[in-house]
């Protein structure tokens, strides 16, 4: 293609290019809204406190166990169960064979066994542990 041909093309097309530039499309409000929504959603995490999503419960650090057990109510129940376990162990009720024998004897009126069954052996110590005294 010669220089003359190129110049002729430029002359011919000049008005068309001007017209096309003036007729350039403008973004609609809806498109801008979608793009800004995308910007919000794609905003890097942790960069903005308000945009930051809630922390992953699996990565909340050393106190994560607190929430995992259901907060104050759950931890309170766990403490009660722990104390109960201590009591069962200290009182010797953890042995199911002796406990069953004692209860059975009590229910059947079985003589001496009924006299020696004590469902709260060492109760005073339990009371100490639970803070009921002093």
């Amino acid at each position, binding site marked *: 293609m010669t220089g003359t041909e190129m110049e*002729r093309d430029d002359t*011919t097309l000049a008005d068309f290019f001007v017209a096309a530039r003036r007729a350039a*499309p403008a973004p609609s409000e809806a498109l*801008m809204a979608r793009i800004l929504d995308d910007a919000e959603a794609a905003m890097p995490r942790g960069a903005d406190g308000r945009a930051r999503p809630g922390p992953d419960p699996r990565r909340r650090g050393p106190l994560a166990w607190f929430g995992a057990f259901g907060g104050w109510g759950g931890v309170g129940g766990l403490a009660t169960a722990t104390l109960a376990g201590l009591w069962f162990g200290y009182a010797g009720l953890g042995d199911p064979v002796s406990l069953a024998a004692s209860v059975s004897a009590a229910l059947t009126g079985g003589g001496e066994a009924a006299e020696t069954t004590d469902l709260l052996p060492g109760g005073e110590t339990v009371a100490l542990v639970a803070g009921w005294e002093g």
Partner: protein
Amino acid sequence: MSMPLDAEESRSDDALLALYGQGDRLAARVLALRLTPVALRVAQRMLGDPAEAEDVAQEAMLRLWRAAPGWQPGAAKVTTWLYRVVVNLATDRLRRRRTVALDDAPEPEDGRPGALAGLIEADRAAALQAALMVLPERQREAVVLRHLEGLANPEIAAVMGVGIEAVESLVARGKRGLVTALAARRGELGYDGD
């Protein structure tokens, strides 16, 4: 974190992208207002379809948001990067559909060539768009970037991933193709042609 709007508007694209990466919503807004028209224009001229052009513009901007955290300031112009993304997205769509023939382009409203100067201009814009659509894609890219976006050849070369001589050749052949495509309608479009 956000700066006043005036301060943000005076910032470079690079700086705004970095601010967006730090959670600055206002920076995102300024960037969107500045760059969405660019993406939409190029997409529309490449595709000739307003709905598809909007989709491409939105996707290109989404890729920009996602690129923000790893953006290297000064490594590339944001607009050059965006042009490249838009052109690639548009090319992908073009490959999935058949080329629209020039004859499918809308005709001037009521066959009154020269009735109103404004109408002629609108017709010329529509005719140029139709003529662009019959060009080979690479020629169309080069012509759009050179003559409608006003980019210099080195930047076009960077967008298209070719050398400057290749850009010059693509632009020249593209313009020849446009003249040929428009020649058939020169009377109704109000230009003399050759």
